[in-house]
């Protein structure tokens, strides 16, 4: 389900957080679905269980998953938060492209609605 790039310079927990966020945002992992256990995921990827634990902790802090004592971790139902996060992310990417175009001398006027960000 998940692939880790062992050669990458990005820390493994960070890669895990990004990949899982992506799966949640794309609705591959659905609200209230149970996440793999730390042990299963660690064995599956051959990585330190404490690294998986750390990734899960970050995902929980960011509201992507929640944990139920004795049962494990589940995908959050608060999709609004997640969507907002995704919008910010995509707008960020868009701004990079706009910046590049402006560097090439293309003048761009734009407006982003929905009240997330405006220019």
């Amino acid at each position, binding site marked *: 389900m998940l692939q880790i790039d*062992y050669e990458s*310079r*990005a*820390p*493994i*927990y960070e890669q895990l957080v990004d990949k899982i966020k992506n799966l949640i945002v794309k609705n591959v992992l659905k609200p209230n679905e149970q996440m793999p256990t*730390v*042990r299963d995921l*660690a*064995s599956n990827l*051959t*990585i*330190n*269980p*404490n*690294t998986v634990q750390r990734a899960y902790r970050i995902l929980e802090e960011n509201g992507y998953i929640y944990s139920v004592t004795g049962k494990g971790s589940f995908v959050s139902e608060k999709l609004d938060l997640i969507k907002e996060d995704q919008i910010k992310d995509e707008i960020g990417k868009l701004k990079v492209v706009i910046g590049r175009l402006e560097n090439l001398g293309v003048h761009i006027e734009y407006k982003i609605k929905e009240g997330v960000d405006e220019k």
Partner: protein
Amino acid sequence: MIVVKSLTKKFDDDVILNGINMNVKKGSIYGIIGPNGSGKTTLLNHLVGVYRQDSGEIVINEKNIYDNADQKQSMAYMQDEIYAYPQYTIKNMAGFYKEMYKSWDDDRYKKLKEIFDIDDKKRITKLSKGMKKQVAFCFALSKTPEILIMDEPIDGLDPIARRKLWNVVIDDVAKREMTVIISSHNLKELENMCDTILILDKGKSVIERSIEDLTQDVHKIQYVLEKPELEDELIGWLNVISKEKMGTISVIVVKGDWKGIEQKMNEYNPVVLDKLNLTLEEVFIHEMEGLGYAIKNQTI
């Protein structure tokens, strides 16, 4: 919890360990790295209570380890070289360990044998280096240890055997919070596997830090300034470990918080600014260079 304080050991007049400090949390995977002859194996031999220190302390679960037979029962030590009686088969040796250790578990031994595809009728002295390692690993894990200590465990193992070994370790760490201490020169694998790294040099602990702090506190930065004459001024603001120049491009290795560094660099209008996290191998080499292990242009 394993705590080592100011551990010192001399053999004759040679100081092998010189004031080592270590803190290993329960359930963590702790890596020890260092140049050849830096004292790694001697340190491990102290941790399992084979050697007695000249001074300092080794406290495991709040008790001194030397002469503590009970604690030793719950520890497994996979040495770099497995010792076996010349005529002994793997099966004979397993029987020997079963007698020695109360916690030996026949079911686990059987499962491990299957995982590593071990034919226990073979004589240990006839096995290849990699096979010996796998057998030693099976023996160590059959004790269901609370603390597993491994000296160069993956040296000589093929990629599949390495995977198998790690998977068994991971399972035990996740399932029952086994504590693992590993010495190795394979920095890439340690980087992926360990929580904490200890760097040894000439019998001293140079650094003991979590892997994140080690690799994310140091950055390799490539940049070109709009006004190259301001370069010395910029460098003055940063904690630069090393500096190289390739034409107009500067490459520096800097310690510190990335956000602060980035902000400072942006004040000098860089035309190009790229950051790379360092790998453990690069961190190790930079730290060792700082200690006088510079890699010179070597020709013979």
